[in-house]
């Protein structure tokens, strides 16, 4: 080898190491790496049964087990356009570089997944690889589903194949170059998809392991609650520290006491997950409301407890932009307390106060109480603006809560004003939203 | 069982009895016997009451029931009509009660329209003389009855507050005491009307008759009708105008507690339940596939494009004074166009009708501005003769023209036909807004010229839907919708060259109808905006500019001056407060 060649080889080696190091730095730890204990193959784990269905469904048919798991993985919400047939796809995800539409996963042979073999389905769910070999975009959370067991994935398939086939072709994606180059996802996947199944941690309890499986493989909480890195993959260095997804803020669910779940009581977490509401902490709405209605509310109680046990173990990561706690109840009189924007007050008096009250404690339903919610304590007011724009409709418990969408009734300026008023009156620090911010939020909402 | 308590607290009869005890009352649900007009009035038709015509009933206690040919929707017409009748009748105001008229064009047709309709600010104009004559004629018969009893000349008797008096002999008899005797009298011909200086009620700020029951929840609107065994329905119509129901999967809906029946019509689906909540939840649980029809892809942009194109055509001349071409040829030219959107009526009382279809009859409880049309349309829908359709009209929780349409009653009859019990069909607010008969979109174009700071020529062209052509075809003459150009033709301004045109342009699919101020809400907006812009162009104060052209309309000028004075025109205003002025003929 000549000297020149040696230098060149060294340079190549250095470049490779640099790239690998770069990837390693960007990719960061896996979702379960924080636990640090000894991992064993699922088949070798005897202390409990982290995967599969809860005990009451052990003897149920494959389709019934698949239904439980499909709900736990919350497939339906993303694969259904509101008003259309369930699982028939077509829901649009607005991204900065175009709109991505979810696919039809009913067993229709032409427009759905009717032609998928078991292996095809496993490839799609665990590896992000389509039946025709094309790559899926990571809007499909296959980097989470990859932790599911083959058996569970195929149970979901059996359930989906038991549904009526719906002929419905979702619109073409409108992604711009280079994002419309599906093949490029191959590299993304190679770096960011571990393509590995769940491995229990023998240092943890069986309940924790079950919770880890449910949280990471099925419920894919991190997809919304964990910030993303430069490569648009989950940055588990800040696991569960909160992020903005589809125009809504998913708050901090790490065990941080001030801004996370550290100060929530177990019963609050259980109530929030199974009913979408916890006294003093407000109600789930937006994407979390949907997750509760269609997924968490369907979980067996012991599975909810397992998730809670697991969440408790996630290391605290503070959200520096949030106050160290939520504000107390506001004064009963409109005259007392912080008076911000007069226009915001006017909108609030006309459209909001009848359900939310001047104090923030709802005269109608505890689910409509604003006091204690992170939404009104977020100085960015993202979720306040979003819920004003798009409203909410909660089904758990039966007809629990509904708020009309005001997006077409008020201007961006008025919505900014009322959001600023609400955060100032009911939160710790008033927001400073502008009409432009509201216009941008409108753009991000899935439809 | 929900059904067992569905009528637990109050029947309409107890509501009524409670109301009667309260003094002034709107006796809504009294079964009105066939109202009859002179001279065909059968003597026995009103059971011991003096019923000289279709509007007045006086019983032996003196209770004076006045029958309202126009409907009360907030405009105060029940009080005004009662004042007119009571004035010429010299009735005792404390004894007056009012009753909704039944459908009957022969007796109750609005003289302006030739049918029993309330709208277009016509009630007083139309009924002023007929009702004064009705009151005066009834009074004369009561006087004749008293005079006959006293053996004196009727001319020597006077009347006041429900009594006939003979001053010379100091005798008096109440109208109640005279009621049965008056039945025997023939109505005199050519009864003189009062001199306005002798009016005792008209011109006085009397308290409204309908308000006492409106402060305590006793007032009964159409939506409040309660019938024994009644069920409740709510509807979903095809979200695209002109579309039809395709497939309906009601498997989940029928499982909702309290849901009784799912009714599928041609373009609408209804769910009947034990209460509105069950009906609403049932409707939400339905899976409806619509055949959206030819307008599935129609957009607002398309509709406006069509109207803009149509508005460029020459219209039919509605009025022309002077020489518009010559007038526009000189002076400082001004051009502007004004586009007005579709508007929903959104009356506070959502659309509703309660219907009981029986083998022999169809009975309807609702609040409508157009009684006889509702009756004839309901008859068609029910497949019954018109006289088998009974309508109980009610107070209207706002009309604004929406209840000049019978569509909601037709739909309710079709739903009620499917069951044997009475059904109250109530539209949700969302449905009410989405399936309105909208104020049309209009495009109004103004071309004018200014000479010496005044309008020398004014050309005004309205393009839009001809509601009149659909609603009252007989009034649609020479291609002119008199409503669409109403306040464009009737201008208070003295424009030497003045020209108004109308282009009929119907929007595809979207139903259009009368809305609030009707034609003027379109014309006045455009005319007065143009006047403000012209004033600015002329460099004049908007009030001054208008004054200079109101020379031939002293009344409008006086109103303008008063408005300017009361509003402190020209005085400075606080920040973020504006002030404008306009003249509406």
């Amino acid at each position: 080898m000549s000297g020149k060649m040696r230098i060149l080889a060294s340079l190549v080696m250095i470049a490779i190491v640099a790239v690998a190091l770069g990837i390693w730095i960007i990719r960061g730890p896996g979702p379960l790496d924080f636990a640090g204990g000894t991992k064993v193959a699922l088949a070798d784990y005897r202390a409990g049964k982290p995967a599969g269905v809860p005990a009451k469904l052990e003897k149920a048919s494959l389709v019934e087990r698949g239904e439980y798991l499909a709900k736990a993985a919350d497939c339906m919400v993303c694969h259904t356009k509101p008003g259309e047939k369930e699982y028939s796809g077509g829901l649009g995800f607005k991204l900065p570089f175009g709109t991505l539409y979810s696919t039809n996963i009913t067993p229709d042979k032409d427009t759905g997944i009717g032609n998928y073999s078991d292996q095809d389905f496993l490839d799609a769910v665990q590896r992000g690889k389509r039946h025709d070999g094309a790559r899926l975009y990571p809007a499909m959370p296959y980097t989470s589903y990859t932790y599911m067991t083959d058996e569970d994935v195929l149970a979901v398939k059996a359930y989906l194949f038991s549904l009526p086939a719906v002929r419905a072709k979702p619109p073409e994606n409108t992604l711009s170059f280079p994002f419309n180059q599906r093949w490029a996802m191959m590299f993304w996947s190679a770096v960011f998809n571990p393509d590995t199944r769940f491995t229990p941690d023998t240092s943890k309890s069986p309940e924790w392991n079950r919770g880890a499986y449910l949280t990471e493989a099925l419920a894919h909480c991190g997809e919304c609650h964990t910030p993303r890195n430069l490569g648009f993959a989950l940055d588990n260095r800040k696991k569960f520290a909160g992020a903005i997804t589809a125009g809504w803020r998913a708050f901090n669910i790490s065990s941080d006491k001030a801004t996370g779940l550290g100060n929530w009581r177990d019963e609050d977490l259980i109530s929030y997950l199974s009913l979408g509401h916890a006294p003093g902490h407000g109600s789930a709405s937006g994407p979390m409301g949907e997750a509760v209605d269609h997924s968490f509310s369907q979980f067996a109680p012991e599975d909810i407890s397992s998730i809670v046990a697991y969440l408790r173990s996630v290391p605290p990561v503070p959200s520096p932009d949030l106050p160290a706690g939520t504000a107390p109840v506001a004064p009963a009189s409109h005259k007392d307390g912080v008076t911000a924007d007069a226009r915001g007050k006017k909108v609030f008096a006309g459209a909001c106060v009848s359900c939310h009250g001047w104090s923030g404690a709802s005269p109608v339903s505890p689910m409509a109480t604003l006091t204690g919610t992170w939404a009104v304590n977020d100085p960015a007011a993202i979720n306040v603006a979003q819920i004003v724009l798009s409203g909410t409709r909660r089904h758990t418990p039966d007809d629990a809560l509904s708020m009309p969408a005001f997006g077409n009734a008020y201007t961006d300026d008025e919505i900014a004003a009322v959001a600023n008023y609400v955060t100032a009156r009911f939160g710790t620090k008033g927001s400073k939203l502008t009409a432009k911010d509201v216009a941008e939020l409108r753009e991000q909402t899935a439809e | 069982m929900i059904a067992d308590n569905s009528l637990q607290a109050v029947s309409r009869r107890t509501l009524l009895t409670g109301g009667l005890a309260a003094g002034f009352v709107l006796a809504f649900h009294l079964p009105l016997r066939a109202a009859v007009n002179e001279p065909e009035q059968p003597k026995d038709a009103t059971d011991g009451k003096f019923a000289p015509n279709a509007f007045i009933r006086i019983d032996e206690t003196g209770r004076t029931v006045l029958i309202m040919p126009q409907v009360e929707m907030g405009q105060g017409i029940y009080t005004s009509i009662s004042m007119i009748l009571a004035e010429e009748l010299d009735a005792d105001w404390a004894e007056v009660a009012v009753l909704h008229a039944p459908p009957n064009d022969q007796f109750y047709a609005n003289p302006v329209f030739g049918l029993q309709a309330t709208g277009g600010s016509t009630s007083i104009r139309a009924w002023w003389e007929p009702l004064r004559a009705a009151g005066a004629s009834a009074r004369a018969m009561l006087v004749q009855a008293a005079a006959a009893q006293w053996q004196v000349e009727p001319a020597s008797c006077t009347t006041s507050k429900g009594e006939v008096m003979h001053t010379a002999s100091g005798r008096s008899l109440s109208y109640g005491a005279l009621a049965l005797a008056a039945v025997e009298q023939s109505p005199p011909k050519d009864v003189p009307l009062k001199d306005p200086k002798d009016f005792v009620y008209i011109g006085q700020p009397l308290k409204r008759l309908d308000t006492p029951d409106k402060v305590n929840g006793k007032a009964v609107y159409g939506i409040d009708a309660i019938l024994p065994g009644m069920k409740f329905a709510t509807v979903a119509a095809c979200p695209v105008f002109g579309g039809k129901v395709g497939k309906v999967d009601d498997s989940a809906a029928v499982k909702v507690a309290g849901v009784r029946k799912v009714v599928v019509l041609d373009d609408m689906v209804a769910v009947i339940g034990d209460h509105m909540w069950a009906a609403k939840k049932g409707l939400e649980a339905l899976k409806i596939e619509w055949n959206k029809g030819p307008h599935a892809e129609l957009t607002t942009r398309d509709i406006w494009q069509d109207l803009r194109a149509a508005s460029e055509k020459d219209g039919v001349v509605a009025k022309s004074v002077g020489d518009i071409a010559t007038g526009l040829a000189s002076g400082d030219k001004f051009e502007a166009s004004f586009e007005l959107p579709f508007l929903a009526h959104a009356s506070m009382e959502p659309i509703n009708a309660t219907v009981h279809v029986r083998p022999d009859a169809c009975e309807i409880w609702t609040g409508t501005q157009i009684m006889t049309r509702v009756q004839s349309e309901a008859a068609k829908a029910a497949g019954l003769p018109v006289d088998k359709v009974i309508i109980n009209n009610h107070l209207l929780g706002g009309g604004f023209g929406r209840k000049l349409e019978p569509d909601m009653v037709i739909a309710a009859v079709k739903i009620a036909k499917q069951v044997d019990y009475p059904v109250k069909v109530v539209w949700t607010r969302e449905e009410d807004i989405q399936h309105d008969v909208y104020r049309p979109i209009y495009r109004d174009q103004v071309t004018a010229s200014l000479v010496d700071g005044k309008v020398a020529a004014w050309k005004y062209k309205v393009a839009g839907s001809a509601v009149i052509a659909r609603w009252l075809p007989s009034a649609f003459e020479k291609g002119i919708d008199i409503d669409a150009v109403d306040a464009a033709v009737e201008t208070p301004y003295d424009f030497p060259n003045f020209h108004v045109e109308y282009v009929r342009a119907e929007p595809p699919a979207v139903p259009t109808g009368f809305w609030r101020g009707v034609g003027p809400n379109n014309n006045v907006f455009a005319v007065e905006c143009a006047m403000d812009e012209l004033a600015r162009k002329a460099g004049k104060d908007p009030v001054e500019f208008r004054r200079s052209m109101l020379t031939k309309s002293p009344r409008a000028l006086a109103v303008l001056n008063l408005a300017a004075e009361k509003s402190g025109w020209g005085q400075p205003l606080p920040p973020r407060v504006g002030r404008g002025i306009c003249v509406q003929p």
Partner: protein
Amino acid sequence: MHMAQTLTINGETKSFNAPPEMPLLWVLRDILGMTGTKFGCGIAQCGACTVHVDGKAVRSCVLPVSAVENRAVTTIEAVGDTPSGAKVQKAWLDLEVIQCGYCQSGQIMAAAALLAETSHPDDSDIDAAMAGNICRCGTYVRIREAIKQAANGRQS
């Protein structure tokens, strides 16, 4: 699921069967036949359905019936028995506030609750309490005047 419910309405105990999530409005109107409380929008945006729960103005169209068990409900039919309700009704008649009247049950309930809490409301109090009550006839100016009259006991 229909469940037996008991409510105290205008001082009387009423029993009936209704699903717990059913809004009080429909219980009043469709089960108990108390039609003075009006349906206007069903989403707490117009105020026509306003009733008092423990003296506070609440929109009955979004208030689950299960939420008012053991609480005192007052409707337009009985608000005249309360001191502030009687004052409001009188001022409403004195000033001829009403036109079509459909919203006025709600306006009166909102005004009565305001006066019960704030005996002499200023304009900003009236705005804060009344902004959510819509009147399509546009009687707002007289409503404001009548509230002030009811507060001051003035005669027109």
